[in-house]
């Protein structure tokens, strides 16, 4: 995307999405890989420490 010589089109509004895409992809992968484990750990911690 050239920002110097030609008038930027509506495409500039896509720049934040493109910039966020790698972070979102990494977050999704981490959530898929470790999400269930983290939830299980929180569940175990809650069960061990909270009085029902």
């Amino acid at each position, binding site marked *: 995307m050239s920002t110097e010589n030609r*008038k930027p089109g509506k495409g500039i509004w896509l720049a*934040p999405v493109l910039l966020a895409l790698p972070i979102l992809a990494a977050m999704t992968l981490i959530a898929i890989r470790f999400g269930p484990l983290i939830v299980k750990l929180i569940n175990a911690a809650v069960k061990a420490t*909270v009085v029902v």
Partner: protein
Amino acid sequence: MKKVLCWLLAFLLAGTLALFGISFACARAVEPGLKEGGTPVSEGVQRVEMNLVREKIEELAPIYGFSAETAMKVVTEEKLAEMNRQAALWWNGILVNGQAGEAPAFKTDELASAFAADIVSAGGSGEDAELLAADAANAVGESILRIVLPLRLPIVGRGLSEAAARVDLGNIISFLLGVRWAALALCALLAGLIALLESRKLRESLFYIGSAMGAAVLVIAACLVLYALSGVDPLIAGASPSLSAQYGALVNSAAIPLFLYTALLLAGCIVCLVLFRRPHEAKAD
């Protein structure tokens, strides 16, 4: 090459802006607990606790043979507020020193004498009435403690002392609270570097900074979606209604600054990108 570097800096800025927002919101929720005396619970939480206490007393009354009205005359809102102050001090000890202090306790003497009078008037004999009243008062006191601080205190205390033998929890917490300022400094540095790289056409730097702000909004939104999908809230609500109310108040105190910050970032993104576009539009005209 300059463009690649600007995109890379914008990418780092987006991550750092998101990190600052999340760490700032978390610190806003935890910081009041670090003040001397801890953080007082909100009126809403205390109302929920009072309702739970009433329910518990009504459940125990027929078992021990005391009147629920008598108990509710003794267990006033002021006494519950005092218990909450003790619980806040307990949390304060953990957050500041990494060690659980003295566990809160509800004084049951007044309850026991009120219950004894109830049991005697219902036809119980003197000595038995006193023993039964003491048992009932202890059960009510324990229930109140479980509502105000619904944790297995010996397990938490043991866990904390084991952890304290290995790491300095107080230091870790103050380090985590400092992350937001480090992130803010890094944000300023990265934005400054982008402006420096595009110093000939300063407006060009608005494009990268605005894009980074917009990307940070998307990352924060994704974090909130992931948190909502994790099901932590229903998990805590299922474990203890009073803990759920306390946790809800904590999450709310973090959510408000996070939403304000996200709105600010979004506005910044729009302003930067509009300002970036304007000179080109003027040239085109």
